[in-house]
């Protein structure tokens, strides 16, 4: 852990049978900033996340974190470099408690294996104690304390989204990849969550790569925005620049956002 490093994506291409999901995409996430990745449905945003986190293999191109090439690494190796992510569709165990789910995030930071846990070595107990404490800190920060003993799968959608965020934070990441973190929340909850994201960026100094369709939140949070369409980068810049880019308006935002007149 020698401070956040830039995440650089260059010429990233991903092909599935007969379909190019990403086509030579490149951008850089500067340390300590929020970088938004937007674009129409099916533009390749989640695919990009999947490559960054090692779930998909890139057909060509490179992803570098500082000096480290990530495209050949396994998911858990990438996680161990300090890259954490949330999932567009929830990936929580239905019956695990929230506490266990959050502790899962600390897997990469802890050591006790089968032998140590099975034999309950003092080392394992000490480790568990320290990490549970930090887990509670993070839960308190997110307002998840009341839910710690509840099974994650039965919670309301919005809370589950927060649990996912908490699990990613528990990994103590340098780079946080958030795939639609506030989808399914109402405006109040959205603002609350957006504030939390801004807060961790500031207090932990980590880099955030954010996929989100709520333009209000993107505008407020993002330092830089990259826009994808059909796997290709069509625009990049500050939120203000991007929002007025005619190409972006055509492909993504729609000509006039207020097409519907109130009745």
């Amino acid at each position, binding site marked *: 852990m020698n401070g956040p490093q830039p995440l650089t994506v260059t010429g990233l291409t991903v092909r599935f049978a007969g379909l190019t999901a990403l086509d030579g995409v490149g951008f850089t996430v500067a340390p300590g900033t929020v970088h938004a990745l937007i674009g129409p449905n099916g533009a390749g945003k989640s695919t990009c996340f999947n490559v960054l986190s090692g779930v998909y293999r890139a057909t060509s191109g490179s992803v570098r974190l500082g000096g480290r090439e990530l495209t050949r690494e396994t998911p858990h190796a990438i996680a161990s470099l300090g890259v954490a992510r949330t999932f567009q569709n929830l990936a929580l165990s239905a019956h695990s408690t929230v506490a266990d789910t959050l502790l899962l995030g600390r897997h990469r930071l802890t050591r006790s294996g089968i032998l*140590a846990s*099975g034999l309950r070595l003092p080392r394992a107990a000490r480790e568990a104690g320290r990490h549970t404490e930090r887990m509670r800190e993070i839960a308190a920060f997110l307002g998840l304390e009341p839910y710690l003993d509840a099974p994650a799968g039965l919670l309301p959608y919005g809370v589950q989204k927060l649990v996912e965020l908490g699990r990613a934070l528990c990994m103590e990441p340098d780079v946080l990849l958030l795939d639609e973190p506030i989808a399914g929340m109402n405006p109040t909850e959205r603002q609350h969550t957006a504030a939390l994201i801004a807060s961790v960026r500031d207090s932990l100094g980590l880099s955030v790569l954010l996929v989100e369709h709520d333009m209000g939140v993107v505008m407020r949070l993002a330092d830089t925005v990259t826009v994808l369409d059909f796997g290709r980068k069509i625009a990049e810049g500050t939120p203000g620049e991007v929002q007025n880019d005619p190409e972006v308006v055509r492909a993504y935002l729609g000509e006039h956002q207020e097409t519907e007149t109130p009745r």
Partner: protein
Amino acid sequence: MSERLTSRLGWLLGGVVLLAMPFYLERFWLQAGVFAMAAAIGAIGLNLLTGSAGQLSLAHAFFLAVGAYGYCVFAGDSGSATGLTGWGLPPVLAAVLAVALAGAVGGLFSPIAGRVRGPYLGIATLALIFIGQHVLLNAHDLTGGFNGRAVPPLSVFGFAFDDSATVVAGVPFRSMEKLWYLGLALLAAGALFARGVLRGRPGRAINAIRDHQTAAGVIGIPVARTRGAIFVLSSMYAGLAGVLLALAFQHAVPGYFGIVLSLEYLAMIVIGGLGTVSGAVIGAAFVTLIPQVLTKYSESLPLVSAPGTGGVAPGEASRYLYGAAVVAAVLFLPGGLARLPVPRWARKGARDKAPAPTSRNMEVST
């Protein structure tokens, strides 16, 4: 009285009763008890794999065989009196090596166990049973073929677990009395170990892999390695169970380690309750003891008739019973027998979490 105190007392009482058994029970019951303890150890291992990691395995009988025969070979006479291979190692070392061997063989199968999931793995492991039977019948030098080979008695620092009588408090202690204590000790150790694993970091990791394989990788869990490790651990439990069973049998026969045995272990963990240590123990006791009890008391049970008199034979009755128990446990007691409303202290599983797995091992999505 506080609940904690009640619970302590309950455990104490149960422990004392178990420890006193060899002074009162005849060999038949002790032997049944040792079988049940061995089965419980094996079932705990299978429950780690199937209940917690969500991997169906039909190969458990195979790993039991590896443990049992491994022990025979390692501890067997090195002389050629029997015409069988034996390394003549000290029995304790042989037992440890046999468990390790089961783990190693499990490790060899890990590439498949890691690649193949769900029902495919279940049936793929069936291959191990059949290949295992083939080897057991053909590798005469190691296994003694169809009629099997004798199991050298265990001895710890010159104290032999054989049929020579050591008199304790006026009671002659022969092999079963001694094995009873050995079984208790191994079962307790195995159960505590498994609970430690399940509640700790590895337990969380295997649950995560079961529910969301891809996500687990992204969270930083090495999926293949963890799954392989749990397969190895489960094989080692089976190996240990195999050693204990062999010691109780005093003779290992290949026919025992067939598909039926594997199916019985699956039945145990479902009857007892998937994913919990106590469930495995309760299920193992149920499945092992039912046929013994029914056979022994066949004359005095109303529905069961003595062999040769027509009607339902005890063997059949016990199969009806345990087949029906599997179905009933799943339909009416989703947590298995371990979740029955019994006093808290008697319910070891009350605090082991890891409830029955429910999500399918498939993720798809957006």
